[in-house]
């Protein structure tokens, strides 16, 4: 039950943040320089130098979310019974019995739930320092997609097949 509540809470905490939003953030770094990345994200936790001259910059962040235990109230019923004796107005003893129940609600708090969060992001840069790829793993790699839009969005271009001609061929209509 606590796990479900925790998941719901995480979603609420995250607001509009999503893994898609995080990927959109990462996507904006493609083609940018690793120097610019470091000036923006800070020094990476790990840097791996590839044999071809490229680098992998790894950013890690981890933490935990502590959800307080849930308090439930448990009913505790007590049963009472007994007998009483009293002297009546005529001087006789009167005996009687009684019984009944009493319910009280006792608060009971469960142990807090600790959720570990982790996000590892890796950027690959080529030998010139240009970021060419990214990847992420973990359960807290979420972000709100950036509003930043490029002046002109990059759209993959389909491979083209046509007869390539030299300038002279084109000028002489030989193509």
């Amino acid at each position, binding site marked *: 039950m606590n796990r479900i509540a925790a998941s719901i809470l995480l979603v609420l905490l995250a607001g509009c943040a999503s893994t898609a939003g995080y990927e959109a953030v990462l996507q904006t770094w493609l*083609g*940018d320089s690793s120097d610019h990345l470091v000036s923006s994200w800070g020094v990476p936790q790990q840097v791996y130098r590839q044999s071809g001259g490229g680098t992998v910059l790894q950013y890690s962040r981890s933490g935990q979310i502590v959800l307080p235990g849930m308090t439930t109230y448990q009913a505790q019923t007590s049963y009472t019974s007994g007998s009483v004796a009293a002297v009546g107005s005529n001087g006789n003893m009167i005996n009687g019995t009684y019984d009944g129940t009493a319910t009280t609600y006792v608060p009971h708090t469960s142990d807090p739930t600790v959720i570990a969060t982790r996000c590892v992001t890796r950027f690959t840069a080529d030998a010139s320092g240009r*970021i060419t790829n990214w990847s992420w793993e973990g359960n807290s790699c979420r972000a709100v997609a950036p509003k*930043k*839009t490029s002046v002109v969005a990059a759209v993959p271009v389909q491979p*083209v097949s046509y007869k390539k001609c030299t*300038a*002279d061929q084109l000028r002489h209509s030989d193509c």
Partner: protein
Amino acid sequence: MVHLKLSLVALTISTAICVGAFAGNSPTTQDSTLLPKIGEPFATEYKKSEYGVSRCMLTPVLESDRMTVALSTDRVFAAGDVFVAVGSDIIDSTAMFPVRDALMKRAAEESIQVKIRRAGKEITVTAKCTDAKVFYDLLLEAGFAASKNDAAGCSDKLRGAASLHALNFSPMHLAFQCGRLAGRIVGPTDQAKAYYEVYEQLIRESQWSADALNRNRGTILTAVDALRKGNAAFLADDLKQQFDQALTAKTQTTASLGDAR
């Protein structure tokens, strides 16, 4: 009259450029036709026989009056220099391509004496020619590749051309579009910077007259707006400032010339 003729000559290319600039804002619907729209006028223009002749080309990129140096990658010429004569040929300022006409008579590898007006004084410099044909061949092949939607091929050709001679606004614009569609200019930062440089060049080429600047006002302001929308406010402001400063400088010059008369 000359300016009217120049405008007509540039009409097809500039129309394609405007289409390209706006198409950038809705790439998914227009990207498949964008490059052919820009590339075809290029291919048509550079197919002309005058571009297929091996002849002298000098390093400066000229402003749109075809006589004033917009920028130069050598130390012989400087921005603002105005061509006066090539050898003994006086530049005919009424011609459509005054400097090119004069250079057509010179061989590709020649060293030539060029008279220029710099800061009001006429001086003669010696300049080394390079072969114009090699450069224009690459522009033609780039335009042809773009007309076939081959962004990578177009981008490669224009890179080759740029290594031979600085590009002016139109090829720069084509290079930008081919570069981004080929995945050579990626990321908002690089795209904004490249886009900015294209329109910075347009200002540079128009700053010889207030009229030329005003003719391009709409295009420049559209670029400023696109940069601002692309979260490149700094570049947008800088571009706008450059335009305003160029216009102010030219308006003041015109006014002072008017006073002198």
